């Protein structure tokens, strides 16, 4: 209050709104707010008038109505009498399924190709470069169509498994690769798996394995401290983990429902539809090429001194890669890897091109066409993808923060 004495108090002039930096930003924001409000009002007004002219309204009641269409690949109970909301749920689960599968395999492909591209073997390095360039420069939609076509054209139809001397035979007698999809055995329990007793038994066995593995590891550490050489524990541990469990499951009556040819098609087992496989594989190899480039950049970002120092310590090349280079490269690789995972999730919406029932094909495809509720369907669709993207990036950011270089 006392500071106002010295400088003469400026009177506020209208031109100061534009010329005075104290007020200018306020002016601009006010203009922006007014423009935004005006355009929202304009678009909303158009929307209301158009809807009224078309005799429509915005309502989500259709989600409770029976959908009336079938979906051939579902993870949960579903039939044509289920509601549209149920169909959307089936779509969401299918999207998440293919996105998850593709993320895993794309990472595997990408890491292998990225590491091999830096191989000292000239031929292998060049081969990987060709793989990366070819897959990066051709649209993923074309890849999905190509792989779907390959599946249909190259794999035998169920018909060809028939007869005394069939043209095609089942893989190892248990899995059938047909142009309608891949059939694999389905595990199930003869007398039904249920009851607290069974569950407790499994938990008890797992706990037993856990302590046995700890004991084996502790013994290995003792031997290592005494003699300097650590005995190989990997196989013992695997045997301890899985041996008793398998025995238990067999004792409980675990069997496999092997797919068999019945009529014109295979019955039994788990069916993995052709569209799912095409989409999964196409997304994996396409995104794998991008991940390979990220991996390569990450490895090259680790300074050569690190590799040389590791070699000077006497580590073999494989261990140099595993113990020294990859952990450091991971910090560079993770952020672009996150955005590749997001891309996979978003690109899985191309399922509509091969008829895989993901959320875009159910909610944004058949439901939209049947009910004509374009605005509602598309808004829900966007909401789902937005949520999925934000969740994935939030989760991966937490992971990224946890492996970040801790600097003082």
């Amino acid at each position, binding site marked *: 209050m006392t500071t106002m004495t010295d400088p003469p108090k400026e009177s506020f002039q209208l031109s100061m709104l534009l010329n005075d930096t104290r007020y200018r930003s306020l002016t*601009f924001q006010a203009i*922006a707010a007014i423009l935004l409000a005006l355009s929202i009002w304009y678009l909303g007004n158009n929307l209301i008038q158009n809807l009224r002219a078309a005799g429509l309204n915005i309502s989500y009641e259709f989600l409770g109505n029976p959908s009336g269409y079938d979906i051939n690949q579902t993870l949960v109970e579903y039939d044509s009498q289920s509601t549209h909301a149920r169909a959307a749920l089936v779509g969401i689960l299918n999207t998440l399924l293919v996105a998850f599968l593709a993320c895993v395999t794309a990472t595997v492909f990408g890491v292998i190709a990225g590491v091999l591209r830096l191989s000292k073997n000239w031929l*292998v390095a060049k081969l990987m470069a060709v793989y990366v360039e070819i897959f990066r420069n051709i649209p993923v939609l074309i890849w999905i169509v190509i792989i779907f076509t390959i599946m249909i054209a190259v794999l035998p139809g169920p018909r060809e498994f028939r007869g005394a001397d069939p043209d095609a035979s089942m893989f190892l007698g248990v899995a059938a690769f047909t142009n309608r999809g891949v059939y694999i055995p389905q595990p199930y329990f003869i007398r039904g798996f249920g009851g607290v007793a069974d569950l407790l038994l499994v938990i008890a066995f797992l706990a037993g394995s856990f302590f046995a593995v700890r004991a084996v590891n502790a013994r290995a550490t003792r031997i290592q401290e005494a003699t300097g050489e650590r005995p190989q524990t990997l196989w013992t541990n695997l045997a301890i983990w899985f041996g008793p469990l398998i025995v238990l499951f067999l004792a409980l009556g675990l069997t496999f429902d092997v797919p068999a040819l019945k009529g014109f098609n295979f019955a039994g087992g788990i069916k993995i539809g052709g569209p799912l496989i095409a989409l999964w594989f196409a997304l994996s190899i396409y995104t794998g090429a991008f991940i390979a480039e990220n991996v390569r950049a990450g490895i090259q970002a680790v300074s050569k001194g690190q590799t040389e120092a590791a070699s000077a310590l006497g580590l073999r090349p494989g261990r140099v890669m595993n113990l020294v280079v990859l952990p450091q490269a991971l910090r560079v690789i993770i952020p672009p890897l996150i955005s590749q995972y997001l891309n996979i999730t978003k690109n899985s919406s191309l399922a509509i091109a091969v008829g895989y029932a993901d959320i875009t094909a159910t909610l944004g495809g058949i439901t939209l066409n049947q009910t004509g509720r*374009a605005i509602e369907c598309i808004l829900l669709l966007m909401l789902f993808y937005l949520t999925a993207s934000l969740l994935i990036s939030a989760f991966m950011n937490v992971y990224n923060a946890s492996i970040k270089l801790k600097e003082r």
Partner: protein
Amino acid sequence: MSDTHAHSVAFVRKTEIPPAPPPASQTGIVKWLRENLFATWANGLLTIAALYVIYLVLSVILPWLFGGVWNTSSLAECREVLQGRVGGCFSVLTERWPQLIYGFTYPTDQYWRPNVAFLFMLVAIAPVLFFDLPRKLLYFTAAFPFVAYWLIWGGSILVPIVAAVGIIAGYFVFDRLNKSSFAAGFFGAIATAFVIWYLGGFLIPEDQSGAMLSPVPSRDLGGFMLNMMLGLTCVSLSLPLGIALALGRQSDMPFIKWICVIFIEFVRGVPLITLLFVASVMLAYLFPPGTTTDLFLRVVIMITMFSSAYIAEVIRGGLAALPKGQYEGADSLGLDYPQAMRLIILPQALKISIPGIVNIAVGLFKDTTLVSVISMFDVLGMIRGPILASTEWNGVYWELLGFASLLFFVTCYGISQYSQWLERRLATDHR
């Protein structure tokens, strides 16, 4: 030295031994093979495996490629010519070439128009891509959008002329007012352009039948031409929009900043295909009642929004990478915000962002194939729709899909090679 020992040493060589050639295993091709292909046992096995893979792929592709048939008019005829031998029916490409390139409804006698537009495009893009070309060519680049619009869509020549006059007048107004204030110039230019477009609207005749080039509606566009048009239009439109969004996201004004953040994060969070659905079924509800906007325009709007959000993020990275001293230096020279951005910050930030922008452009160009899902007949839509559904060519997958892949590969690989060249060219730091 030799004198003192001359009597005690039986033989002293007076001349140098001629250098012996290195062992055969240490030179030339043998050494190269050893080091690069058979350094270790595992490496050798890997080489053999790689060779086997290459052999497998080539043994399938080469006979198919070179045994191909190029001049029959249907698949049945082609199979007759092949008589069971392995070979591709490439005659589908020669026979359906116009459909693959221009779509199946573009008037046949007007194919020269897209061709000329394509040639003009090469000339117009050249000075943008290569700085050594005469700068005068940029005038042609500026005129190109209007010429190309008129060539491809036809109709009254007054439409592109009015559009061009509006933009030129806007530029002059901006030039005049910019001396006092950037904002005044900017808004003045926009207002001028709109006034001229509105007035010019009265000049354009409703009846287009007397036009020099017969009008072609947007729904008749198709084939690879559609991919190129969408790619080029959306990338050029989304660059300025992306710069504006990036600057908005960095702005000190919270309201503007949050509008930009919400827009960018929203668009980046949803797949392009949902935005295309918006274009095909939802956007029409947002236009004034009674008007019809063609699908091409709606798709261009949505794809431009999509790519501008991605470009904004790339440019934001470039802006963040600039040292703070650049911003402070511009301030200390007394430059105001528009001047500082235009003269100091953006030229450097854009240079850093070039690889990223090119990546986005390549990705966008590939994503133009998605319009086939909303029943626009781009090259993939043509293949999956009219061509494979026709009785003559039902079942010719590999030739067609291979051709589409080749078109995209050549274009996208070319663009990424150019970007690497440009990066080397623009590198001003001496390393």
